[in-house]
Every structure is written in C-alpha cells, then in structure tokens.
C-alpha cells in the first residue's frame, strides 16, 4: 500500500523544513518526502494543494476520564476526538477514578487505547505523583514508569506541601521522569470560581487571585532549579507566570510550559451572564495577560500548546456557575483556534505553530513523535491541515462525548483534514468520500 500526499507544504520543525513537495506513506511508514518523489505504484492519492503536511500533532494535556468517569468521556471517544483534531499522540491525565496511581491501571489504559474500536492514536499516560492525588504519599513511580507513564502529575490537586514536592522532584530526577504541574495555591482559591477582577466583583463570584497561580509557579520553578528535576508547567494564564518562567529559564532551571487556546482567546469578560463553558482553572484573565502570553508564545517562553481537553457531561455544566466543574472539551477545536488566533495574526509562523503543537511537546515528554523523519517514529504519524479552510465550530458535531465547548459557533480558519497514524485514521468531510477511521 503506497499513499501519496501530493503537492502540499511540508512543515517539519524537527528538521526546520518548510518546502512544497510530496510525501509517500508506504506500509505504515513515511517512505520519503521532498520536491520530487518516486510516484510509481501509488494506490491512493490525496491532493494536498494549499495544505500543510505536518508531523502528527502531540497533545501533552488531555483528560480521557477512563476509568471511572465514562459518562464524561471514554478512551474510545476521546481518542476518536484526538484523531479528528489531528493529534496522533495524547497524554492522558491521572485524575480518574481510581487515579492513575498503580501499574495495573496504566496497563488497562494502554490496552484499551490499542483496541480496534479506539481512535488509533497513541496514548501516553501521565501517572499520579501521590497516592490518590492526596499529596500525602508518593506513588511507586519506578513501577509506573516501567508500566509506561511518560510523566507524573497530581493535576488539579497540586501538592501544597513544599517538602513533599521537593521529595517528589528528587525521586523524579533519579527516574528521569518529568513532572507536570498545575500551579495553584489552594488556600487562595477556596470556593473561588473565576478570575479575581472587575468581572467577579460585578457578578458577586469569589475570585481566584493571580497570585494563587504565580506563587506556585515560582515555588515549583525554584524547586526545579535546585533539584534539577524537569518541570513542565501546565496551563499558564497570567503575565506574571510568564515572566517568572522566563526568569527560571534564564537561571537554567529545566522548566517548560504550555498554554491552552482558551487562555489566548478569551478574557474573564467572556463569562458574561454566568456561562459555565467559560469556567476553567486557572481562570480566564484579562487583556493584559493575553498580550503578554501571546508575546511569550512568540518569543518562545511558552513552549507548547495543549488542548487541555477536559470533557464534562451536560448535566454537570448546566448548574449554577459556582457548582460547575472546571474545563472544556478542546481536542477538536485546538488546531482551528490556534491558527485563527495566532498563526493568521502573525504571532507564530506556520513552522513555529507546528513546533508548538507537535515537535516540542514530543521532545519535552521524550515521545517517539513530532517528526516526519522516516524510521524515527514507530509508525507514520502525519497530519494534513488546511490552513485557510473557514468553518464554524459546532460542538454537536464532534466525536467527543462531551459538548461543553466555549468555541461553539465561532468561525475558525484552519482545519484538520487528514490524520495518519500508521494507516489513515481520520478524513474530513470536506474530502470526497469522507469517512472516519479505516481499519485495514
């Protein structure tokens, strides 16, 4: 089986490559690419004129909710959403029920994600840092690492005790395991549900001060600097956090960070009349924060973009704002929103966009992904994106079980057209003969 992706713009940040050419996938591997390729014996041709041919996208921050919360999302529906979003590798977060704190559950996730019903993408589990994410006792990180975790994190229940965090970091240095940290001082955000600012004051909602995030960013950066533990900060939202990460990098701390599209698209004013789709942690901030965050993306302080896919069932979000859970479904809107808000506005070049969506997250988590080089990934991981496709995001037409998207109804420019992970796993409806997932 030889598949030809014809006449596209090949963007491979791992080789700093930005050329017009063709790419051939043969026997589930990238065979060759370039301006001229061997076009004999082709079984299938896709005309990619005007489109980007990129390494499969990598999402460092996804909640698949399984086991225990299958009413929100399952590994099957979540990986299908990933494929439709252009992602060929997703890192799943440990805040499931039970938490991903022992090797048996990691095995379960890896088995489930490799099943034929699933979306066909790679799932890289992130293990819990402490048992049941209670922040009291470290998990058996070496066993978890052998089982296949790529990083450790307590996600939405960040370790508050600094001594505990330091211990965790020491262990992770020894195991060569990155720590992914959600940064929040919980004592400052008790009962709070949105950014502390003029909007929260007007709506009578308790606010999360920016200091709650920045204190923890600073603490974690300092601990990383002094222990040498690789630290990946999830979901940066304030200008202060960006400045602190910039400073930590300058000091030589092994720190990286990510941002999710919500935080460069909306301010806290989007909450409007208590709209729960806009409830996220850390919360939506102000225009000043967006300006500095965008600058941080542009200058490289912010390393990568994650979807922060946090699916919730409808009945969980149709409640008073303070009761609603944090987060939104993001896998299928991330490419469109990133291109619309950043690439087409000149913040990121096409090559940098793909670097932040694929090559850098793969590098941070040491995944065999994020490149088109033949043989460097287990199977061909290729995504085709039409950067100029105008479409309206409709949350009811997604593969995710969850419909809590703040981007519903937004006109986006840029869409995933094809996703290959070994074989073709997603083809957009705009292509003739559209279908979802082929199992050969």
């Amino acid at each position, binding site marked *: 089986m030889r598949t030809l992706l014809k006449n596209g713009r090949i963007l491979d940040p791992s080789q700093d490559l930005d050329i017009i050419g063709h790419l051939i996938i043969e026997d589930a591997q990238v065979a060759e690419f370039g301006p001229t390729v061997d076009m004999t014996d082709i079984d299938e041709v896709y005309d990619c004129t005007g489109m980007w041919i990129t390494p499969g996208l990598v999402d460092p921050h996804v909640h698949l909710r399984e086991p225990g919360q299958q009413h929100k999302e399952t590994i099957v529906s979540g990986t299908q959403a990933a494929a439709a979003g252009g992602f060929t590798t997703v890192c799943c977060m440990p805040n499931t029920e039970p938490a991903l704190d022992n090797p048996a559950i990691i095995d379960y996730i890896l088995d489930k994600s490799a099943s034929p019903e699933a979306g066909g993408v790679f799932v890289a589990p992130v293990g819990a840092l402490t048992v049941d994410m209670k922040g009291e006792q470290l998990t058996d990180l070496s066993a978890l690492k052998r089982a296949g975790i790529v990083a450790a994190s307590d996600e939405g229940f960040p370790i508050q005790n600094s001594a505990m965090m330091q211990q965790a970091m020491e262990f992770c240095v020894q195991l060569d395991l990155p720590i992914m940290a959600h940064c929040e001082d919980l004592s400052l955000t008790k009962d709070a549900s949105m950014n*502390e*600012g*003029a*909007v*929260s*004051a*007007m*709506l*009578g*909602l*308790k*606010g999360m*001060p920016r200091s709650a995030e920045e204190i923890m960013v600073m603490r974690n950066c300092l601990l990383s600097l002094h222990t040498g533990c690789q630290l990946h900060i999830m979901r940066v939202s304030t200008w202060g956090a960006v400045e602190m990460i910039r400073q930590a990098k300058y000091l030589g701390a092994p720190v990286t960070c990510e941002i999710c599209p919500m935080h460069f698209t909306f301010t806290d004013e989007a909450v409007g*009349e*208590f709209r729960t789709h806009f409830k996220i942690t850390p919360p939506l901030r102000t225009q000043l924060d967006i300006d500095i965050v965008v600058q941080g993306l542009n200058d490289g302080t912010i390393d990568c973009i994650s979807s922060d896919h946090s699916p919730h069932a409808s*009945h969980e979000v*149709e*409640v*008073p*704002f*303070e*009761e609603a859970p944090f987060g939104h479904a993001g896998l299928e809107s991330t490419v469109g929103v990133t291109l619309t808000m950043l690439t087409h506005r000149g913040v990121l070049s096409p090559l940098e966009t793909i670097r932040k969506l694929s090559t850098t997250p793969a590098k941070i988590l040491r995944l065999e992904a994020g490149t088109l080089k033949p043989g460097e990934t287990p199977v061909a991981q290729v995504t085709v994106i039409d950067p100029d496709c105008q479409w309206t995001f409709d949350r009811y037409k997604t593969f995710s079980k969850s419909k809590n998207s703040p981007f519903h109804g937004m006109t986006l420019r840029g869409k995933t057209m094809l996703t290959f992970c070994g074989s073709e796993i997603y083809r957009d409806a705009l292509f003739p003969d559209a279908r979802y997932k082929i199992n050969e």
Partner: protein
Amino acid sequence: MPRNLLGIRHLTQDDIQELLSLSADLKLRIIEGREVPNLSKEVVGMLFFENSTRTRVSFEQAAHYLKMKTANFSAGTSSMSKGETLKDTILTLRYERLNGLVMRHRMSGSTALAARYFGGPVLNAGDGQHEHPTQALADALTMIERKGSIEGLQVAIVGDVEHSRVARSNAWLLSKLGAEVRFVGPRSLMPSHTQMLPGQVHYDLRSGIEGVDVIICLRLQKERMADGMLSSITEYAAMYQVNRESLRWAKRDCLVMHPGPINRGVEVDDVAADGERSVITSQIENGIFVRMASLYWVFTGDEKPSPPPVAKAKAPKAATKKVATGGKKK
C-alpha cells in the same frame, strides 16, 4: 422571552422608573383602601433555597394583596435534598404549571439559570452575592418619599460590600437614576477590583459619609471573622459603626437605612437605628409595595420589546404606569 426581574444591572432607567411609579401607585391604593389589580389566575412558586424571613413574608404579603396563589417550596423538604439538580427542580415546577417563580439561592447567577429553563417570569429574591433587586427598589422608594428624587443624592453604602448583593443592586439602581454612590468599608471586605461597579471606594468611614444624604448600612456576617477577614467585632465597630458620633459627618437630614437583619452594636448603634433619621421600618413596609409592583410588572410584561424610550424621556411623568385593575392585560 417572558419578562424577568433578575437584577437591576439589566434594567433600563425607564424600567426602574416604571417599577417605582407602579409601587407608589399601589401603595396609595392599599392605604386608601382602593382596588388593586387582581392576578388571581396566577400561581407563583416561592422557592427559598436559603433561609429568609422578611423577604419571604414580604413576597407572600405582596402576592396576597394581588390575590395570587402561592406554592411554597423549601429546600430542606424537597427533592433537592434527594440529589435533584436545580435544572430538574425548575423544569418540574414548570410542568407543575406554576406561572411564575420567586427564588432565592445561595449561588450567584442561579436565578438566571432558573429563568433559562422555567419559561415563565422569574423574580430574583437574592442570588448569592450577585443581586437583590426588590430590596434596592424598596430602598429607592423610601428615598424618593423622603427626598423627592434620587437624582443628585449622595449615598454611602457602608460595610461588607464584597459579600453583599444588596450593595450591588442598590449601586446599580442609584447610579442609573443619577445618584452618586460611595462604597465604604475595610479593604478586606471590599472587592479588589471595582472598576465595573458604579461607585467610588472609600476605606475611611469619615471621608466616606462626609456630606452624604443617605447611609445604607450593610449587615456584617459573623463568618467573616472565622475567615480571617476581620480581627474582631469590636475593632470593626470602632472603625465603621454608624452611630451618634459618625452621623455628625453626614448631612443633618441624612437618612439611615439597613436591609436587615440588624446587628445592633456592630454596624449601627441604637441612636442610628431607632433615631429620627432612621427609615428602616419604612424600608420594610415599602418592600411589600415594590414586590407587588414587581409581580405585577413581570406578569403583565409584554413579550414584545418595549417601545422606544423617546416619549418617556421627554416627560418623565408620562412614564407613570397607571395600574389596570381588570386583571391580566394581554
């Protein structure tokens, strides 16, 4: 969309004027023993998810004068305690064919959620720390009776502004009708960002109430001490109590208001609460009439958008809506 009363923030100046003149008209009718509108076909649900005595009684009384039937509902004995979501409770009441809802809930924005699913008029009787529109209307009616008009008044709202829905609703109403609002209180009980709230912030009682026409005292919740926002009641009282001494800084004919329940000796002393400048009892009484007006206003509201405000703006008197006594007009 049915007409709702979810907050003062959403109302236009004309809406507020209309509600206030309706209230004054109804008050006169009740006092003179004349006929008031008959809404006997309407059944209104009283949903108090949070404890309330005065607001509940006041709404019950208002509904009684309008000959409406009320269906009572208390959170403790309802299916909410069996784990039903608010949305399902509201949908249930909708299909129980209730015509309207009066609702109080401890969460900000919960009445807006209820209005989305109920399909009929919803009146906010206090949602979290967001709004308490009928209290603001009662206060405004009291001010108009004593001062003639709201426009040009200087009003200080003193106390726990951050956690007060009364402060927010009053500030919106007063500023929309042309008064100058000051928020007065300690930094720990003041929102840290107030640029979207209509008022000037004063952290010092003296500068805050210097020369004002009206002081609205807010109730100080005892939980604030437990949360570490205040060191002691004594200290708070020493700094922010409206009393014989501090009243000297305000205008000589300054009104003292309080939405109740009062913590005597904390936010006000007896001289302020019971003295000749106190209008606290009028606030309570006027509460009934503004709630009558509110019920009447939402139940007879046009589904069409209201006519352009040009005619009303020219002659404010014309905005006075005479009550049709023949029941529901439609």
